[in-house]
């Protein structure tokens, strides 16, 4: 098992649940046991919960695995069927195995030229969140680069902590990719509702500051003063270590609808994996928590059966976000929709249930503070597409 976050842990659990009683080695590049990432931009960053609350393993849970944490996979040798490790106390060691689960996740994209400048953060790991939390506690002016979900959640949390917050988004409408233009505009209006500045349609030229950042320079010539900068411009799959291994890569590990890769005995799950979506007829790399939690069971079944199982149709992808006290939920794919209808609530109240349709058929659903109705629609969406 290469990767020790949610997808890796879910795969390990699935292996045991599906009867695998052999040796199981779990390799993780972070020194931490598996922890939950969604709260890192929300409750954990706000100080509402601590590190113990983030643990994903249950008290007394024992998967009978050997955990090699703080060490990284540097390569996969297909003929030796071995993973080569670097770092930690395992430097240079090779682990041979009959089967491999690749769950190396994704890494936050950095802003070019921000290396070594104090006060500039990304948010992906527990260590990132600790560092940012400590800085936010000092207060001041925060500039968030990127109006996506991570950026929006950090802005919301920092605003609640009393910081002066500005969000800079290169696209004309934040969240237009995942939510579409109309709903992206409504959800991102939450910033403005709460007095957070939202600058859209303008790129970032660079950062200024000697040893510590003091401003964000925009491409239109404006300068936004900053004591802290958070870069939330997406993530890239951590698959460089597989180059030359024979595992086909294409925006992550290219996988079938059951998680199989181009190499026998190797499956991939979570943020690093681009699974074939049989409904859409394309590969999609889905970075949602629920995908990392649900798909490993299918991938592990594939691995244990040697690829002889017929993959089930996964439920439509689902994700959530909490911003300014509003619970945002989304299921399905907005990209293929040709209409969006508000079925309940009112956008101006930031309380809405909207259904995306393509040729009259629901393909996605968005909820703002509508958990009950949202679940009904999500269930219906799954029933229609299965």
């Amino acid at each position: 098992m290469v990767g020790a976050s949610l997808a890796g842990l879910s795969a390990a659990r699935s292996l045991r649940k599906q009867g695998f009683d052999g040796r199981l080695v779990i390799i993780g590049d972070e020194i931490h046991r598996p922890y939950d990432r969604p709260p890192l931009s929300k409750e954990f960053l706000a100080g509402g919960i601590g590190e113990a609350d983030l643990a994903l393993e249950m008290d007394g849970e024992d998967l009978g695995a050997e955990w090699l944490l703080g060490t990284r996979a540097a390569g996969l040798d297909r003929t030796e069927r071995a993973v080569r490790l670097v770092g930690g106390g395992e430097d240079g060691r090779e682990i041979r195995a009959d089967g491999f689960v690749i769950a190396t996740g994704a890494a936050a994209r950095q802003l070019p030229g921000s290396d070594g400048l104090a006060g500039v953060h990304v948010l992906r790991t527990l260590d990132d969140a600790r560092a940012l939390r400590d800085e936010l506690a000092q207060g001041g002016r925060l500039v968030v680069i990127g109006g996506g979900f991570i950026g929006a959640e950090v802005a919301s949390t920092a605003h609640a902590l009393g910081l002066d917050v500005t969000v800079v988004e290169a696209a004309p409408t934040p969240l237009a990719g995942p939510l579409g233009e109309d709903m992206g505009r409504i959800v991102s209006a939450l910033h403005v509702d709460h007095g957070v500045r939202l600058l859209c349609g303008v790129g970032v030229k660079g950062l200024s500051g000697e040893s510590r950042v003091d401003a964000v320079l925009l491409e239109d010539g404006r300068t936004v003063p900053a004591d802290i900068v958070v870069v939330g411009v997406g993530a890239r799959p951590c698959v460089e270590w597989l180059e030359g291994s024979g595992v086909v890569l294409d925006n992550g590990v290219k996988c079938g609808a059951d998680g199989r890769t181009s190499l026998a005995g190797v499956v991939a799950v979570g943020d690093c994996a681009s699974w074939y979506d049989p409904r859409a007829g394309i590969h999609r790399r889905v970075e949602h928590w629920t995908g990392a939690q649900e798909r490993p069971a299918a991938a592990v079944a594939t691995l244990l059966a040697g690829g002889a199982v017929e993959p089930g149709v996964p439920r439509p992808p689902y994700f959530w976000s909490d911003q300014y006290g509003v619970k945002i939920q989304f299921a399905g794919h907005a990209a293929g929709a040709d209409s969006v209808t508000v079925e309940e609530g009112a956008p101006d109240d930031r309380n809405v249930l909207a259904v995306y349709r393509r040729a009259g058929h629901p393909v996605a659903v968005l909820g703002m503070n509508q958990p009950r109705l949202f679940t009904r629609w999500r269930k219906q969406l799954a029933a229609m597409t299965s």
Partner: protein
Amino acid sequence: MIPACRLVDLPRGEAFRLDIDPPVSVFHTDDGELFAIDDTCTHQDASLADGWLEGCEVECPLHASKFDLRTGAVDAPPAKLPVRTHEVLVEDGMIYVQVSTDAPNLPPCVASRLAGGPA
């Protein structure tokens, strides 16, 4: 015994939330069985009555934790602690719940609010 609702008013596949403190929900499964568990997810403040009921399992409407209605056990994370189960009785078409005397596993934000701390 606390009266919940009439059996005819709770179709299969639906849940009824009893607004006691902490709230308890009665689930009527597609197979016609009745189960009562704590309504609040043990991970974060969410009403399981709003969740996705499938078989003898309910999925939290927010973060997809799953609980076994029969035992209260966690079937899927992020929740780690079980919900309490409560006895259900139907008499003269009325559903009654005998609330467990065990301590509930409330999520950190709800527990601290009840204790008078910051939410």
